């Protein structure tokens, strides 16, 4: 009865409904915007997660990088009459799987694998791109080999060229870096490397091998070789032993050039032994010492080939220091007798006098011989042309002992000579 009398409840309800309507509409708008914002944030989170995954990828090519065998041909699919097959060796250093979507290869050299075989289109000078394919196709890689598992080592990705297209240096040619290979992943990362791999040290060069080198020291002249100077164990050596009056220094893992030459098999000399040789053995005069060779590795970074002959002025080793008092830390060696003994290139030793053509972006070993009857000084290579990079230097000796056939090592009555002696 009071309601009908006062009539306030009606206006209160209406007012309340209006206020509630405004509030709910505002709330619904806020809820809607929040939903939109949440959706956007989830997208941001997803893309950030994808970025993290992408940055986690880490593919690395492993030795041998690419493998090619001319006998590995495929006749499936559109490979007509056949395709050459390559295998890309790659490791996944990350803890996340990686899908390869494309491979690019750009060749900076146009030599065929067979060094001039007829009908060979050579290299990817115009950039080759390889997409995935479920079956062998020219210039495709197998989709089944595209995924690299987390932490997988030496994963093999198989790809194909056609029957006339090969990559330069597909078979060992002594060169490196002729092909730039880029591997693209599904997350947008690009991993690139050069193949054939550049050498990381003399021991990895294909034309070198290892063996046991025995160095014998005879006599005890003045000053002579003192065995007390030799440490018990030297790097890559086993220390000295005395056999039948001959003091022997053994290097079981010595590196040698596998291919023989007019100077016998050449051995890389342990740095310690080298210093000892020069310090103790050589100052004594005489012609009855083992030959010591200096090996210099240079790389041709010029755009074209260079030709090495014995007359190349820049191949001369010069000795600016003319006294028998080398500075500490410097490499002490006698002056060089001949300008150039020979070259090691493409797995072959070429006697100086013959020309050696060194292709662009390849390395060559230059071998010099030391003249024992001379002064002491530091080694320098002078007049090196631009584009030729000095890569390294080492000393070598040969495997001739007393009575050998070489003119520079003929005596058997050496007093303080150093021998590389197999029977030591």
């Amino acid at each position, binding site marked *: 009865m009071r309601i009908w009398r006062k*009539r306030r409840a*009606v*206006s209160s309800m*209406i*007012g309340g409904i*209006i206020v509630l*309507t*405004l509030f709910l*509409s*505002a709330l619904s*708008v806020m809820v*809607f*915007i929040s939903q*939109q*914002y949440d*959706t*956007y944030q989830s*997208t*941001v989170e*997803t*893309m950030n997660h*994808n970025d993290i995954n*992408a940055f986690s990828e880490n593919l690395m090519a492993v030795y041998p990088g690419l493998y090619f065998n001319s006998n590995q041909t495929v006749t499936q699919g559109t490979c007509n009459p056949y395709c050459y097959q390559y295998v890309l060796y790659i490791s996944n250093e990350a803890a996340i799987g990686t899908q390869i*979507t*494309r491979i*690019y290869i*750009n060749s900076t050299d146009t030599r065929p694998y067979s060094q001039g075989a007829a009908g060979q289109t050579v290299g990817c000078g*115009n*950039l080759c*791109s390889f997409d995935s394919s479920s079956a062998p196709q020219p210039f495709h890689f197998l989709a089944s080999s595209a995924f690299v598992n987390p932490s997988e080592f030496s994963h093999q990705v198989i790809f194909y060229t056609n029957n006339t297209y090969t990559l330069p240096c597909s078979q060992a040619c002594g060169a490196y870096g002729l092909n730039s290979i*880029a591997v*693209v992943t*599904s*997350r*947008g990362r*690009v991993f690139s490397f050069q193949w054939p791999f550049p050498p990381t040290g003399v021991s990895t060069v294909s034309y070198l091998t290892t063996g046991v080198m025995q160095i014998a020291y005879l006599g005890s002249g003045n000053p002579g070789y003192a065995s007390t100077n030799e440490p018990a164990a030297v790097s890559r050596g086993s220390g000295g032993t005395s056999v039948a009056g001959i003091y022997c220094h053994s290097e079981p893992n010595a590196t040698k050039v596998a291919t023989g030459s007019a100077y016998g098999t050449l051995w890389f000399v342990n740095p310690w032994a080298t210093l000892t040789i020069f310090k103790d053995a050589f100052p004594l005069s005489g012609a009855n010492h083992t030959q010591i060779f200096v090996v210099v590795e240079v790389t041709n970074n010029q755009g074209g080939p260079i030709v090495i002959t014995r007359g190349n002025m820049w191949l001369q080793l010069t000795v600016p220091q003319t006294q028998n008092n080398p500075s500490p830390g410097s490499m002490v060696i006698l002056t060089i007798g001949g300008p150039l003994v020979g070259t090691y290139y493409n797995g072959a030793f070429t006697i100086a006098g013959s020309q050696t053509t060194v292709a662009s972006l390849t390395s060559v070993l230059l071998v010099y011989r030391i003249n024992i009857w001379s002064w002491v000084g530091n080694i320098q290579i002078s007049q090196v042309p631009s584009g030729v990079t000095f890569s390294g230097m080492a000393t070598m000796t040969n495997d001739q002992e007393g009575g050998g056939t070489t003119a520079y090592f003929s005596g058997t009555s050496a007093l303080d000579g150093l021998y590389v002696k197999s029977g030591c």
Partner: protein
Amino acid sequence: MKSRLKRVNRRRPKHTLAVSTVIANMMMITITLGLAAILIAWTGSTYGLFTSGSQIFYTQRGQAMQERLTIENTFFNTTGTNRRLLIFVRNDGAEEANIVAIYINGINFGTTGSGGSCNVPVTIPVGNVCEFNVNFQSLSPSPKTGDTLYVIVASARGNRATYTVRIYIPGT
């Protein structure tokens, strides 16, 4: 006289209300509802604009966020006097990307040369790659080996993929 005055004074209070109570209440309710309707309409339109605007904003930002462009390789295809750069652009995102411009050193190369698989503008589906063939001969000064090109590939959503490459022209 007295009786006449009393009669007049007694009648006056009966006619002091301008409208009846019912009509007044109805007018008040009508006015209130009218104002409320106007207010709700105004707020509704405002909220509507707000919500639709935010929806468009977040949708577009989300799509732009999901767009990922990668310049995965470039290659100089220079024959004769042609100075052409092949640009390989992949869409690694979750949305298709509409490429609208390619800039090289700040110059828009809207039309690409022949030989590429794509010309701008072009839409790259998710996971696909486009090969743009850009003739940069018109750059001034004339490009030569050793110069640096700064490449920008722009999408319609405002994303950019950048790449810096040093020119190598064989024989120069």
